[in-house]
């Protein structure tokens, strides 16, 4: 094979024939076109005449050129040119396959896996030992061990991209400690230059890099700025124009169902690598945003989780003393307002009114007594998770609440009166704060030395006092105490909320403490120092595809690391929690951008993903040569003066005949469609959707054939031979039932096809989706086919689904069934959720609204269980031994029930009443 860039010749030696072109040129120039011979009786009259003008005896240059091009095209054609040849990895010896396997690889993951499969297949054929490593995995503990490619092939199906970046440096270091020579195949995600890594690979042998050639997109975390939620969308390369992309803000609606709350369009400027998107949403919606996502490219990078930064709390402020205008700076609420206004919505009203507005926090600044009614309502609100923050003051000190017995609205018992230190009438200097204890929510905050406390209320020394202290003065007296009350909390600052008793409210510490208490939320991304010393437990984490999942057994992360360290296996992107605060750690940090991998050294073989399709150019070149020769014929005739009227007309007639023939050919297509429609409407036909994978299509056909056989034998439904349906091309509305096997590499149908499918589903058709992989995992648990199904079904108009309940009509339309096995058993199937459930005479009865469930979704690989060969023998083994035979029988029974269900609608579910009806008739 001889390659020039993306063009290669499979039989390059034929190209030597091109040398003959100049010779032919000379030959053809020397020989003029042959004259026409014409019998003509008047020839005698011509004898002796001389030609006044001479025709060119040599062939005109353009005709020569035409012939040369035709010949060159023919020679090139027979040299078997191939555009974008699929390079097969040559070479021998061990092969190392490394995949970046990061979130940036997620959009084209199936293609990557397919590429690796190709490479491993090739290695298996050549008997090369291989080693497969995902760079997002930890470096192997043992040494480099090359194994048979087959062992890695088995792993491929289960591989998934991680949500963090590959650790190339660690692998390069590890490689340095290994002693082997090998060729490498690196499927990169095209991000972050890695010259050292390439050098490390190149030191061991040839390196082949497979790049996507597509820009990687990522979203930064959403922040609240200037009254709108803003985020920026980054791309790794600015060289190719991108269509406008839609970014969705997702969140839960009041019913707890995730919905799209807003959508914004992002269009990259010509050379920009990032673009800002903003969502202008009302507060209610904004607080509900859980994440923003880019549906066009699914990966962890294009999902940005939101955290407390977006939340604005509703805070009710109540002061025990009415404000007076001239005394603003000593007003109890002044500093609270200043501290909270930027990040929260404040309500100032009576306690009852505030509680009606369902606040997140209620702050009582120096409120002495509350009425019984207010107390009851406050307690109810506290029990359901409110945060009551109280500040002390003269009124509280005088009220005597909680002095004799514990008051539920105060965290601790208070001593009568208070104390003041450092005043004119007292001994000692004003007290400063003691550094926060580790158990305190304020742990890690810096204590400024200029914060001084002059007066405070004192807590009764109770046995349980120490555990309620959140902050204390240097002499140990509690300054901030708190305790849980129901689901909520009560926190008391033992000083006033103004600067009367202490300088705390006018220090920066005050704001940080409020933040830690989740009273206010921070306006910007926290600094590493802010979270120092805290342990943040992962609550939910993203996988490589950007799907939120449970954190499982992941351990907590240090607060400083959470901010400063990049996401990794021990700290995957997700939602982290400490106390009542949550921080979202996204793939892309606040100031991060995407850097492309950059150009590779010339010695590295590069391969692209975008042009996987191998294009054989031979037919086109031959066609070109033939067309040129046809033109040459006409031109030669014209040059020789033999292209006269009638010939031209007959030539035109031939051309039109050809056009007519082509027309007939298209007509033949139409005829074919008509035949299909006729067959589908005159006979009962089981149809299956063509996936483009010949093996799967073959199994589908055989499966439908097997089911057809059983239906013909056992039931009144007598289908004819099954039909393959091309969703894009064929009319599907004639078929009562479509079997749709889901394959990983399926083309997503066009919008027109979706419109057709939706009409089909609405008008009573049924599609059986089969992911054929329930052996790999439960349905919807992110198997490759499951993901593909999600993508396929995203645009389908599918009603709410539920796992088929025990009394679903499918279990009794013909046979009584408990399970719906195919090749795999005991996996649930999903059907349309029951609309309303009523008990009829003690028997649960589903009123399915005259409808057949429009979709049945499962992964039991039914077609394989039904499939029969042309001789009527089963194609695939099912289960083992007699149990397997039983399972196949049950699979057939499921098929019969399903088709019965399709054909009879709710008739069979009405049959449930037959005994009751008969009984009534008898009476």
């Amino acid at each position, binding site marked *: 094979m001889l390659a020039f860039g993306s063009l290669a010749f499979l039989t390059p030696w034929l190209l030597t024939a091109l040398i003959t072109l100049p010779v032919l040129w000379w030959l053809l120039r020397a020989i003029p076109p042959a004259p026409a011979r014409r019998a003509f*009786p008047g020839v005698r009259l011509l004898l002796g005449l001389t030609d006044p003008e001479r025709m060119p005896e040599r062939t005109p240059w353009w005709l020569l050129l035409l012939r040369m091009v035709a010949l060159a095209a023919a020679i090139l054609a027979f040299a078997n040119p191939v555009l974008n040849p699929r390079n097969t990895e040559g070479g021998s010896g061990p092969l190392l396959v490394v995949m970046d396997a990061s979130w940036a690889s997620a959009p084209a993951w199936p293609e990557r896996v397919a590429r690796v499969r190709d490479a491993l297949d090739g290695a298996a054929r050549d008997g090369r030992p291989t080693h497969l490593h995902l760079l997002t995995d930890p470096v192997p503990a043992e040494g480099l061990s090359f194994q048979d490619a087959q062992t890695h092939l088995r792993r491929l199906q289960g591989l998934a991209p991680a949500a963090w970046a590959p650790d190339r440096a660690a692998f390069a270091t590890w490689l340095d400690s290994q002693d082997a020579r090998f060729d490498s195949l690196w499927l990169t995600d095209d991000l972050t230059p890695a010259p050292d890594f390439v050098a490390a690979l190149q030191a061991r042998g040839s390196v082949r890099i497979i790049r996507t050639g597509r820009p990687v997109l990522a979203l930064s975390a959403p922040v609240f700025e200037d009254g709108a939620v803003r985020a920026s969308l980054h791309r790794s390369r600015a060289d190719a124009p991108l269509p406008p992309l839609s970014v969705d803000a997702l969140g839960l609606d009041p019913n707890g169902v995730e919905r799209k709350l807003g959508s914004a369009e992002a269009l990259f400027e010509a050379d920009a690598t990032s673009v800002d998107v903003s969502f202008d949403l009302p507060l209610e919606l904004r607080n509900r945003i859980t994440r923003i996502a880019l549906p066009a490219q699914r990966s962890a990078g294009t999902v940005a989780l939101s955290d407390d930064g977006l939340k604005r709390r509703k805070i009710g402020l109540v002061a025990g003393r009415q404000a007076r205008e001239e005394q603003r700076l000593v007003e109890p609420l002044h500093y609270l307002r200043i501290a909270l206004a930027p990040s929260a919505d404040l309500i100032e009203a009576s306690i009852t009114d505030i509680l009606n507005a369902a606040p997140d926090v209620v702050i009582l600044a120096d409120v002495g007594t509350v009425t019984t009614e207010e107390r009851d309502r406050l307690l109810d609100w506290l029990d359901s998770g409110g945060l009551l923050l109280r500040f002390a003051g003269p009124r509280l000190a005088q009220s005597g609440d909680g002095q004799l017995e514990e008051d539920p609205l105060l965290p601790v018992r208070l001593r009568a009166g208070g104390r003041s230190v450092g005043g004119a009438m007292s001994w000692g200097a004003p007290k400063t704060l003691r550094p926060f204890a580790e158990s305190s929510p304020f742990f890690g905050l810096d204590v400024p030395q200029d914060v001084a406390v002059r007066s405070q209320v004192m807590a009764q020394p109770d046995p349980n006092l120490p555990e309620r202290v959140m902050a204390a003065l240097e002499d140990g007296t509690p300054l901030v105490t708190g305790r849980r009350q129901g689901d909520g909390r009560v926190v008391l600052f033992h000083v006033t909320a103004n600067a009367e008793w202490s300088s705390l409210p006018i220090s920066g510490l005050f704001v940080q403490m409020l933040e830690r208490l989740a009273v206010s939320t921070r306006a910007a991304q926290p600094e590493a120092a802010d979270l120092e010393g805290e342990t943040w437990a992962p609550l939910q984490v993203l996988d490589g595809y950007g799907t939120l999942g449970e954190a499982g057994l992941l351990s907590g992360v240090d607060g400083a690391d959470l901010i400063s360290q990049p996401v990794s296996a021990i700290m995957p992107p997700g939602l982290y929690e400490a106390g009542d605060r949550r921080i979202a750690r996204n793939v892309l940090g606040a100031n991060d951008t995407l850097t492309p991998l950059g150009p590779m050294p010339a010695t590295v073989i590069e391969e692209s993903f975008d042009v996987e399709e191998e294009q054989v150019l031979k037919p086109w070149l031959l066609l070109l040569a033939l067309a040129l020769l046809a033109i040459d014929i006409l031109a030669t005739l014209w040059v020789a003066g033999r292209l006269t009227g009638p010939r031209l007309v007959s030539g035109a007639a031939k051309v039109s005949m050809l056009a007519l023939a082509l027309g007939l050919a298209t007509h033949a297509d139409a005829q074919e469609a008509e035949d299909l429609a006729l067959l589908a409407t005159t006979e009962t036909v089981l149809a299956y959707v063509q996936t483009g994978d010949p093996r799967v299509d073959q199994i589908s056909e055989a499966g439908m054939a097997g089911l057809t056989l059983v239906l013909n034998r056992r039931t009144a439904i007598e289908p004819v031979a099954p039909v393959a349906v091309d969703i894009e091309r064929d009319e599907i509305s004639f078929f009562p039932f479509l079997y749709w096997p889901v394959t990983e590499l399926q083309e997503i149908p066009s919008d027109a096809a979706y419109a057709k499918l939706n009409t089909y589903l609405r008008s009573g058709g049924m599609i059986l989706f089969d992911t054929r992989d329930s052996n790999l995992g439960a349905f919807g648990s992110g198997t490759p086919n499951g993901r593909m199904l999600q993508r396929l079904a995203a645009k389908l108009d599918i009603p709410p689904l539920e796992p088929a309940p025990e009394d679903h009509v499918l279990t009794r339309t013909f046979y009584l069934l408990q399970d719906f096995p195919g090749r795999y058993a005991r996996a649930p199937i999903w059907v349309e959720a029951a609309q309303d459930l009523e008990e009829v005479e003690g028997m649960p009865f589903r009123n399915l609204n005259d409808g057949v469930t429009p979709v049945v979704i499962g992964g039991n690989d039914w077609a394989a269980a039904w499939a029969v060969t042309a001789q009527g023998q089963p194609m695939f083994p099912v289960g083992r031994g007699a149990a397997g035979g039983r399972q196949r029988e049950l699979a057939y029974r499921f098929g019969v029930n399903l088709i019965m269900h399709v054909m009879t609608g709710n008739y069979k579910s009405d049959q449930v009443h037959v005994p009751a009806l008969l009984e009534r008739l008898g009476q």
Partner: protein
Amino acid sequence: MSRSIADIAHDAVWLRRDAEKIGGALPPLLADAERLAATVVMGDHGRKRAGTGETFWQYRRAVPGDVLTQVDWRRSARSDRLYIREMEWEAAQTVSFWADDALAMDYRSPKAPRSKRERAALLTLALSVLLVKAGERVALLGTEAAQPRSGETQLRRMAMSMANLSEDRPDFGAPPPARLTPGGRAVFLSDFMGPRDAVFEGLTQAAESSVSGVFVQIVDDTEESFPFDGRVVFESMGGAVSFETQRAKALREAYQERLAERRAALQDMARRTGWHCLIHRTSESPRKALLWLYGAIGGQV
């Protein structure tokens, strides 16, 4: 002898029926010729002059010198003068045909309905049918029907000989050196495209033997318009003569000039010898030529 149209039509129909009855022995050419001949209005075509014959022509007053036996006494008795009874001259005429059957006459351009030879034969036979029906004798020079005869047999013989083509025909034809009946008529049908000397020698010989007649030059349309272009090797029909040109279109003027020259020579000779000259194109209707020929031959006879 004068015959009505009905008689002639009846004869023609009979001839055709007879031809069919004898199982196709009648060449199709003859049938064609008869159909064509039937369209010509016959009219009175007697000699319209006194002579030996059986039909009464006129009474004329006897003049001194008339033989006494010629006096019709019955007529003379009705007046005071002597009358002589004259009969119409009914001596049969001989019309000799030469239908060129050289290879050149086989030429037929794609658009032409018939080849030149077919047209020549058709005209020959049609005129012969008319002449035979008028009692004349016809002969086809250069064939077995060269002996002037009258009657259906002669017609059939002519048709057979014209249909029966010999293998070794020359490329170009020249009038056969046959002896023409003195005082007879001659019709020469050819394209006169042969070598000038051969053609004109034969014609001169015929014209000089006190025979008057008609030259019919039958040409194909393409022989006049010369619609050729490009590099062409022109060949005679048999391939004996060839001529190569680099650009045929450029020769058109010169060719048409030579053709006109040849025709002028033909017409010049005809004028000198009292012959007539007709140029007939195969694209034209044969009826037109037949009418003209009938007038030219019949009018004189």
